[in-house]
């Protein structure tokens, strides 16, 4: 069974540009989460989908970030316009239960 996949693995963009990150969860997992790790600090929660609905988006830093989950399958996280402080590693995870989250390898975003 395929695990959680994320695309791209790396992205380098200039300040002010737009970037879209994609996450494909494990098939059948209703729960999908986005996390971010900035500059080697702690991994922080961004938001949680249950199917196509946003269950909790309390961790989203500001309105430059937009997450969607079309049809309850894959999810995208768009940053528009990107700022320098958005650089970091963005992780996606999926699960059937809260305590069994399966993580993707992450997308490393560098904003220059």
């Amino acid at each position, binding site marked *: 069974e395929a695990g959680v996949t994320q695309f791209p*693995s790396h992205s380098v963009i200039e300040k002010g540009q737009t970037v879209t990150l994609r996450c494909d969860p494990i098939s059948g997992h209703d729960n999908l989460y986005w996390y971010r790790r900035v500059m080697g*600090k702690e991994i922080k929660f961004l938001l949680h989908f249950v199917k196509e609905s946003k*269950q909790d988006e309390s961790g989203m830093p500001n309105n430059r970030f937009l997450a969607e989950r079309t049809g309850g399958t894959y999810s995208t996280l768009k940053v528009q316009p990107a700022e320098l402080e958005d650089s970091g590693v963005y992780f996606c995870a999926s699960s059937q239960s*809260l305590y069994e*989250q399966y*993580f993707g390898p992450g997308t490393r975003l560098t904003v220059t």
Partner: protein
Amino acid sequence: AQSVTQLDSHVSVSEGTPVLLRCNYSSSYSPSLFWYVQHPNKGLQLLLKYTSAATLVKGINGFEAEFKKSETSFHLTKPSAHMSDAAEYFCVVSPPYSSASKIIFGSGTRLSIRP
């Protein structure tokens, strides 16, 4: 309020010697605690979890952790390190039956194994 502290950002041990990765937590409730491992270019993988059952928790790859309420610690150990254990390890705390937004990750400990 909850917090988690991984006391060492980097630990280096020789192959075949014991591993100790330290984690202290603070929680208003009886928490659930987890250890995750991330190998290079891989996703975080759950090593083990404590959810108020036995205080000594055994995980995958020979790792185990002991929940010590009096010391508010959840240290990760392994009797004999293997080269494949080289990775970054995260201690995680969560209130029981809570939402993902309440999950707190430690800052990570990078484990290096010397031949």
